[in-house]
């Protein structure tokens, strides 16, 4: 019996491998963006691709996000599958007109004649000590734009699987890469990547029966830590990792909440008009009679992303999650 060595790998390595494998399998896959070529990306996620596939396949573009995404639209029109890197969350904003007016709706505008298979990689979120404009959680903007799929991995296996699925998709997919998980490690075999749930499916990362933590991306490890800590308080928490924000997996989320009867949505981005509001509303509409308490949200504050020396006060941590869990004892309060 031969066993394949499974070694620890980082999320960044899995993302690189996903692009490499996609490029090897399909000559129409092109990686493009600022610094993705010679440098291998500021996070080194595209490291080695230009060397292996040439600068025509992994292209350092001029520094212009609207131009990067706009030219990717034209390339996709001509049958290529561009994989675009937006270097940091807040750097993507100049490209929003191309994203909203063209990328998201070209299939719709042309009645299905002109689909655009574009993958947009956005390193996002805080926790790495980045200065202003380097730590935004911009998922609500993408989620609010019909025509886009929006995914965000929390594990090494998902990073590979979701990015491969995004590149293979005939629709535009925004892949939100949690920057602070780039160097997180899991046992992972790059030669035989395990199969993961497809885009559109959430997974239960930890089973429990007292309450459900609904979360995604950078907040998944925080919620798992909170769930461990909560055991001391007698809480057995279930953690659902959404993985895919659009389409949204109502089925998995609601099945969990119906089992536990209580739910907290956890994310870094601001709570007001944030993803948690939508998720709480969906859960309430579908699980009202199963709920023992209101669906609560633990989110970042409704402030512009703070300077790095203060970000630990802004980001939802274990304590804030446990406080919310304590508030789920609704009957005791009323």
């Amino acid at each position, binding site marked *: 019996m031969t066993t394949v060595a499974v070694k620890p790998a980082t999320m960044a390595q899995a993302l690189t491998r996903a692009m490499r494998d996609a490029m090897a399998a399909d000559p129409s896959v092109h990686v493009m963006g600022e610094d993705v070529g010679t440098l291998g990306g500021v996070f080194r996620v595209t490291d080695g691709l230009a060397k292996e596939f040439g600068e025509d396949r992994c292209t350092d573009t*001029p520094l212009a996000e609207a*131009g990067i995404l706009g030219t990717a639209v034209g390339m*996709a029109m001509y049958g290529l599958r561009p994989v675009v890197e937006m270097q940091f969350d807040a750097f993507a904003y100049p490209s929003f007109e191309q994203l909203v007016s063209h990328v998201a709706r070209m299939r719709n505008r042309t009645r*299905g004649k002109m689909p655009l298979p574009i993958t947009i990689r956005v390193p996002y979120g805080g926790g790495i000590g980045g200065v202003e404009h380097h730590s935004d959680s911009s998922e609500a903007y993408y989620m609010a734009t019909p025509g886009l799929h929006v995914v965000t991995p929390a594990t090494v296996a998902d990073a590979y699987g979701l990015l491969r699925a995004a590149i293979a998709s005939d629709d535009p997919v925004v892949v939100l890469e949690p920057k602070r998980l780039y160097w997180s490690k899991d046992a992972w075999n790059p030669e035989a990547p395990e199969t993961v749930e497809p885009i*559109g499916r959430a997974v239960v990362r930890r089973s429990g029966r007292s309450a459900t933590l609904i979360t995604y991306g950078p907040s998944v490890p925080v919620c798992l830590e909170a769930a461990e800590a909560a055991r001391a308080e007698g809480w057995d928490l279930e953690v659902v990792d959404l993985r895919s924000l659009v389409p949204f997996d109502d089925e998995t989320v609601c099945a969990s909440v119906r089992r536990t009867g209580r739910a907290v949505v956890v994310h870094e981005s601001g709570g007001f008009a944030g993803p948690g509001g939508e998720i709480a509303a969906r859960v309430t509409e579908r699980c009202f009679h199963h709920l023992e308490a209101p669906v609560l949200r633990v989110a970042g504050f409704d402030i512009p992303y703070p300077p790095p020396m203060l970000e630990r006060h802004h980001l939802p941590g274990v304590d804030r999650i446990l406080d919310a869990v304590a508030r789920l004892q609704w009957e005791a309060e009323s």
Partner: protein
Amino acid sequence: MTVMEQRGAYKPSPPPAWQPRTDPTPLLPDAAPYRVLGTEAAAKADPELLRRLYAQLVRGRRYNAQATALTKQGRLAVYPSSTGQEACEVAAALVLKDRDWLFPSYRDTLAAVVRGVDPVEALTLLRGDWHTGYDPYAHRVAPLCTPLATQLPHAVGLAHAARLKGDDVVALAIVGDGGTSEGDFHEALNFAAVWQAPVVFLVQNNGFAISVPLAKQTAAPSLAHKAVGYGMPGRLVDGNDAAAVHEVLAHAVRHARAGGGPTLVEAVTYRVEAHTNADDDKRYRADSEVDAWRDHDPIALLERELTERGWLDEAGARAAREDAEALAADLRARLNQDPELDPMDLFAHVYAEPTPQLREQQALLRAELEAGQEGAL
């Protein structure tokens, strides 16, 4: 420790050598818009091409008039006329080979029609029954673009992709003078020049961005001068001289096809009608200015040249007019029929496969429609 102490005595030296990366002189546009009609250059023109341009100009003028009339009858939601600018529209469409691509703005319906798009399908956006009525791949015409200048990077990307694939394809993108102020104009030109993409940018400078005149739009010597900053040639042409526009664009297309990279062409023209049927142009310009441009009419200019040279007779002119009338009659007849719309189309083309959420909404609308039908019975 100071810098001087670190390195010993500071010895001033000249800065590292600098020289311009490209000689700007050959990129500069001519001092005045290039003209053919009414000049000696016309003698060298191809009579057959001029007659083709003429027939399409006459059709285009009639098409503009008919479409504007259809807005008054409520058959089109809006129509941005290209009356007065037909030479640019026609030349842009005729200069391309079948394998090339055209990237029009919302005012360039006529260019799409001359390229072969069905006139009714070309007006679908403006009629309001769908966003793009035609298959962009059938005639290689991108969807009419309403946001300003955002189609320009698409043209660059497509041309770049074609070249990467080894295909001999040129993209021609049309933008207005107002569109040259947009960031996407800058980014598209910069990408095109850096990548040496086979693209031609045609600016139809018609004097106004809705109501704002060019003087309030830009401080550049001309819009064609902007090309120099990107490292591509800028060309200035009389946009009402169909022969000149065709010649300048043909040169730019040949240059791009041969691997010479992009060109920016500014066609100086005028929008003799309002921005759209919904606009009141009397608020921002004088009749005398419009009349001066009517005297420099693209059809009259070409007709005079053709007639004086004996290249067009009364029978030829009559044939062009009859052909244009037939186009208008067909357009009237077909646009006067109510389009058949399927409300379920709302969900059909958002994603390759509708999301579970869209399926639920689809079911809701279907139930509403069925209830409505029962109510009608």
